[in-house]
């Protein structure tokens, strides 16, 4: 069977499974639609949360980023897992006890204010919409690369599939498809990793393989990778960091707080039947996420080594890597390189016309490397590699069978679709439940609200698809913004709502606005006002990263600190929340009395 046919069959089967599940789990009430009826088991919810959480960025891009950044890539590994400790202990059980449908509804009730809810809805929409742009483009890219259709057609197919289960089933349909998608994506991630770990180290467990010796030698894999990359002028793999350690700390912290504050993650904990189940479910979620996140660094280092040895077989033979015969002859390069060149993710330009490929860091400051390269007649790096290749082409680089390649295709699509669906759910419930029912049409009946919820979902899908078809040209910068906003607005407001009885309406609104504005101000300074090219104003704030050398991606933690401080100070100077709110806080803090999730707006 040819590779293309295998991919079609695998992806087709996975889609049939998702749509089948959607028909089986149609939503009949608003409770089904918003919180899957509120009786999802902690284990199932753990899988669904993990799938909804791990996006195209986690599945396709993260290992590649670690591969390029080496040790510096740890910010993603810790940032995107450590947040679950915060979520499990500070938010999930208490918000579940509160027992309503959405995140803005907690803000609205706890801060007894439609204004606070409106600010929360705005923050939620901005964070979720910026996040979804990346998912839709991810869907399009995955389709076009694996199925040979155009990116646009890919997005239409993706929209159609999400439409089928998200509109029909709401949260209920999304939950069961996400469980299936988790199984597909985790197999797709781990199976190739087991193969390459076996090939390189003889150890089938990638997490152990990364710390093992290269097969048939006495040298540790990581030591060997360090040797190879430094010989070629790249930075030491295990110690390389970008920026300062302070920036690394704040970047990690921003991702952690942002993770805990992302509404599409939080709402998943409204679908379990009790406070105890919410706690356990957060634990399961992190186990399921950790399976992928502890495998990623192994893929990163191993795929990096494999790529270097493919281009420079001299590495494996342990001969001088600058010798002429070490570099691969261009016309004899493997088929997968040609295939990925067609997508633009890989590019070879024979600068010195020797017919061979030289892949090294020509901007290195290491004089020895520069001299060796010059003596060997190398005239610059000839291979440009998009980091996504490390996962996408990983099975091909390691010469694994076709079905593994097809599985990676299905896994990438599962990751992008499951996250897109979760985000769409958060967006449409904010519109139908918080905006329409909560603020504009309070006496909406359950049946009409369900209908409006489905319409909001359909509109959100079309809008997200449109964003994917016409990416605003800032897709790369948007994830930073989504995490920055979740970290600087929603997380502090939710946390103070539970842990402080003193923070009041005025404080919460002022805090969220302060966090939002300062974060937008700093991000826009670097990336342009609303990401419009040419409107950057870094000069105004004293140059790029002027605030203690902190990059805009790492600024969410600062925004959160400002939110906490402003909310607290404003609250002290205004009057305490009314007695019934203080009672509400006290009741939220205690597990007993947790009830089924209700829709009622008081």
């Amino acid at each position, binding site marked *: 069977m040819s590779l293309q046919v295998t991919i079609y069959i695998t992806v087709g089967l996975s889609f049939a499974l998702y749509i089948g599940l959607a028909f089986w789990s149609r939503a009949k009430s608003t409770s089904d639609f918003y919180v899957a009826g509120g009786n999802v088991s902690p284990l199932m919810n753990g899988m669904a949360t993990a799938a909804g959480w791990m996006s195209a960025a986690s599945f396709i891009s993260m290992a590649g980023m670690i591969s390029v950044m080496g*040790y510096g890539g740890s910010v993603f590994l810790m940032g995107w897992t450590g947040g679950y*400790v915060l979520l499990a*202990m500070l938010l999930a059980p208490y918000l579940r006890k509160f027992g309503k449908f959405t995140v803005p509804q907690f803000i609205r009730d706890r801060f007894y204010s439609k204004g606070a809810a409106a600010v929360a809805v705005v923050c939620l929409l901005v964070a979720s919409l910026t996040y979804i742009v990346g998912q839709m483009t991810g869907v399009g890219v995955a389709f076009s690369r694996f199925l040979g259709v155009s990116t646009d057609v890919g997005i239409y197919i993706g929209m159609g599939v999400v439409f089928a289960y998200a509109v029909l089933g709401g949260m209920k349909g999304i939950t069961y498809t996400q469980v299936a998608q988790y199984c597909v994506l985790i197999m797709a991630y781990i199976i190739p990793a087991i193969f390459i770990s076996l090939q390189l180290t003889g150890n089938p467990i990638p997490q152990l393989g*990364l*710390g093992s010796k290269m097969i048939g030698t006495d040298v540790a894999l990581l030591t060997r990778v360090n040797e190879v990359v430094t010989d070629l002028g790249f930075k030491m793999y295990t110690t390389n960091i970008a920026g300062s350690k302070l920036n690394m700390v704040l970047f990690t912290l921003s991702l952690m707080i942002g993770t805990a504050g992302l509404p599409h993650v939080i709402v998943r904990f409204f679908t379990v039947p009790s406070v105890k189940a919410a706690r356990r479910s957060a*634990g399961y979620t992190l186990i399921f996420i950790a399976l992928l996140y502890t495998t990623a660094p192994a893929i990163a280092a191993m795929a990096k080594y494999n790529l270097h040895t493919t281009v420079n077989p001299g590495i494996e033979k342990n001969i001088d890597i600058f010798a002429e015969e070490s570099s691969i002859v261009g016309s004899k390069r493997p088929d997968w390189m040609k295939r990925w060149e067609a997508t633009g993710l890989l590019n070879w330009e024979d600068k010195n016309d020797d017919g061979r490929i030289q892949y090294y860091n020509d901007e290195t400051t290491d004089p020895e490397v520069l001299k060796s390269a010059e003596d060997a007649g190398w005239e610059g790096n000839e291979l440009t590699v998009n980091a996504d290749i490390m996962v996408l082409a990983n099975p091909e680089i390691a010469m694994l069978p076709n079905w593994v390649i097809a599985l990676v295709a299905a896994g990438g699509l599962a990751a992008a679709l499951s996250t897109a669906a979760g985000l769409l759910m958060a967006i449409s419930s904010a519109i139908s439940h918080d905006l329409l029912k909560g603020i504009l049409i309070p006496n909406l009946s359950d049946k009409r609200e369900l209908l409006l919820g489905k319409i909001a979902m359909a509109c959100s899908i079309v809008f997200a698809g449109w964003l994917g078809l016409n990416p605003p040209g800032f897709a790369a910068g948007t994830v930073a913004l989504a995490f920055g906003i979740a970290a600087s607005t929603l997380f502090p407001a939710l946390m103070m709502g539970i842990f402080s009885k003193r923070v009041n309406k005025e404080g919460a609104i002022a805090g969220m606005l302060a966090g939002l504005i300062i974060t937008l101000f700093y991000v826009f300074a670097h990336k342009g006002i609303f990401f419009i090219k040419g409107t950057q104003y870094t000069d105004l704030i004293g140059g790029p990263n002027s605030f203690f050398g902190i990059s805009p991606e790492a600024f969410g933690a600062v925004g959160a600190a400002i939110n906490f401080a402003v909310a607290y100070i404003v609250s002290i100077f205004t009057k305490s929340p009314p007695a019934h709110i203080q009672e509400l806080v006290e009741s939220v803090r205690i597990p*007993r*009395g947790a009830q089924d999730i209700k829709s009622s707006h008081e």
Partner: protein
Amino acid sequence: MSKKETKDKTYWYETLKLLGIILGVWFVISFGVSIVFVDTLNKINLGGYPLGFWFAQQGSIYIYVLLIFIYIYFIGKLDKKYDVHEK
């Protein structure tokens, strides 16, 4: 103050203490061990891993999972002790 209110107050106080301890470990592992003091730890090897690098890319994640389950165990005991668990 009624007996129930005092009891709920001590429950909350003990919960905060538990959260404080666990978040303390979380903080030290994430930012101390894995970032600030990583170079010192890298001088030690764990199999083929430099220890600091292992914490940053593997160990921290295992510890996060462990921390959540430790939290679940102890908060469950607290719930029962103060009779606020779900029935």
